């Protein structure tokens, strides 16, 4: 019957209860949308970076991680050992060796520092999504000697276009400086403007012809799924011999890894702020309910309702607010996310800023079921905390004075 009393008490002041229930539901709805969009944006950004440029993990020589100089190569025998280790792992779907050189690129208009990535075009196409980001030309599919694929942003800054010449200057593993003319054979644009501005692609075989020997500094490794990346990376690490070092995408792109790790904490903080705002709304509502019912609560204490039961009654009433509004807010949030998953949130007016962050201009939220539990827990916790002060006020009532309405 306590439950029945609590339920009916909620509806005593219908408008006030509807307002507080709505505020809780809207708070939850907003919280879920924030979670959905944050996860959608972060996962999309991460997936795009892993797919286009990072891979799930990478192999380097230990020296390269200390100092990415041209001489810090993966030695041929170490590479063979690495390939054998990768082929043994069932979750590895492919790998792509890369030559990584720091150099200068020059056009008629400008000279800039750049990172020159020498790729095995076939492996790179098979293990990355770079081809999907091509704006003009292709990723070394058309047979062309000394072709270079540059980003749209770099092309714009250097005044380059398709088939235009650019001069690449770089140092080899022996410290010898080479200079060679390449012709733009493709223009790409990934979601990450910062990456685009720095990196250009050439074919490994062209570098090899210029230097006279093959150099492998980096091997991009792809997994079947993005889950458990750290564990999978550790499994490969255990199978390769030193000095080859396997690093996960979180280690290779600390800013992405940090964003991924911090997102959970940030979202809990955001939810905490929402709940804090709701907390005061609920306290206000319940305090008014207690003060309005002083006479009745005084009567209950007079006739023998003990403090534990009185406290429980206030607590149950407050919890009921959360238990009614919580599912409504979650349902609305879930429906909104599912609709937005198809439609997306168009932020094309902020396209350039988002590109700097490696994010598309249309953001698609994701349903994150585990956060529904977090939200439910937080709503219950908020209701419990909100009940404390009104319940305390009720317990402090003097029955004689309360019955008189004082």
């Amino acid at each position: 019957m306590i439950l029945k009393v609590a339920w009916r008490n909620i509806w005593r002041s219908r408008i006030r209860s509807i307002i507080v229930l709505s505020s809780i539901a809207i708070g939850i709805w907003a919280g879920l949308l924030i979670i959905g969009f944050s996860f959608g944006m972060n996962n999309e950004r991460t997936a795009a970076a892993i797919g286009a440029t990072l891979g799930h993990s990478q192999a380097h020589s230990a020296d390269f991680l200390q100092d990415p100089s041209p001489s810090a190569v993966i030695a041929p025998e170490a590479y063979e050992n690495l390939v054998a280790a990768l082929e043994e792992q069932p979750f590895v779907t492919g790998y792509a060796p890369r030559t990584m050189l720091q150099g200068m690129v020059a056009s008629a208009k400008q000279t800039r520092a750049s990172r020159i990535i020498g790729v095995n075009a076939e492996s790179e196409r098979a293990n990355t999504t770079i081809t999907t980001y091509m704006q003009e030309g292709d990723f070394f599919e058309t047979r062309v000697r000394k072709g270079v694929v540059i980003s749209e942003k770099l092309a714009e800054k250097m005044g380059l276009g398709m088939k235009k010449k650019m001069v690449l200057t770089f140092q080899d593993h022996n410290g010898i400086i080479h200079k060679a003319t390449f012709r733009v054979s493709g223009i790409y644009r990934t979601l990450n403007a910062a990456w685009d501005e720095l990196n250009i692609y050439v074919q490994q075989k062209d570098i090899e012809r210029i230097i006279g020997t093959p150099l492998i500094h980096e091997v991009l490794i792809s997994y079947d799924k993005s889950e458990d990346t750290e564990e999978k990376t550790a499994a490969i690490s255990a199978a390769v011999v030193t000095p080859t070092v396997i690093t996960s995408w979180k280690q290779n792109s600390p800013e992405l890894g940090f964003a991924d790790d911090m997102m959970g904490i940030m979202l809990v903080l955001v939810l905490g702020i929402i709940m804090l705002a709701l907390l005061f709304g609920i306290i206000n509502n319940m305090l008014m309910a207690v003060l309005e019912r002083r006479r009745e609560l005084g009567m209950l204490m007079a006739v023998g309702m003990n403090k534990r039961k009185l406290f429980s009654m206030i607590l149950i009433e407050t919890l009921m607010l959360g238990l009614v509004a919580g599912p409504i807010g979650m349902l609305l949030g879930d429906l909104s996310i599912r609709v937005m998953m198809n439609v997306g949130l168009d932020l094309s007016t902020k396209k350039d800023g988002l590109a700097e962050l490696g994010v598309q201009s249309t953001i698609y939220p994701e349903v994150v079921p585990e956060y529904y539990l977090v939200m439910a827990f937080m709503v219950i916790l908020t209701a419990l905390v909100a009940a404390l002060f009104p319940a305390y006020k009720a317990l402090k009532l003097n029955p004689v004075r309360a019955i008189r309405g004082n």
Partner: protein
Amino acid sequence: MSKAVIEVSGLHKVYEGAVPVRAVNGIDLTITEGEFTALKGPSGCGKTTLLNLLGGLDQPTSGSILIDGTDITGLSDNELIDFRLHNIGFVFQAYNLIPVLSATENVSFIMLLQDRPKEERLARAEQLLKAVGLEGKEDKRPGQLSGGQQQRVAVARALASKPKFVLADEPTANLDSESTAKLLDIMEQLNREENMTFVFATHDDRVISKAKRVVSISDGKVISDTSK
């Protein structure tokens, strides 16, 4: 000889302030089982204070109050709450029913506090509502009942816990003559047939005329005590 239900001796209640008020000033009083007693006196004479002290709602400055042999002045707050629940029935001037509950639920709520089984609660509530003449009104909420009917629900509620006595503070103050007469008839009948002890604080002549014993109070003292 009937058993003493309430035994008060040397009872004082002083409200401290700039000028201390002696609301109860040395009362000795014994009320036995089955009495139908009115505490009468003008406003401010101390009768409601005395009733609150008898009901364990307030603590005396000095003196003792024995309820069925237990000195309630020595009980803690929690013990007093529990004592009231099992020993004392209350009827208030303003009825003080729970507006969101039906008549039956209001009556059975106190039995819920006593942790009595649902079947027993419902059966006793039905029986008591019938006894106070509210058959057919069991599902009505207080807002759907007249003042007199609400006070009868309050009487049924007071009896629901099977108390040793019922304390009623100005129970007829908000009622018209017809409702007052009906309420008093019901309480008189419960007193007569079930030997229930009633103690009223009142200045209503209609109540006083029905009382079998009238204790007059003035300035916190008993000035007369007459039985009919």
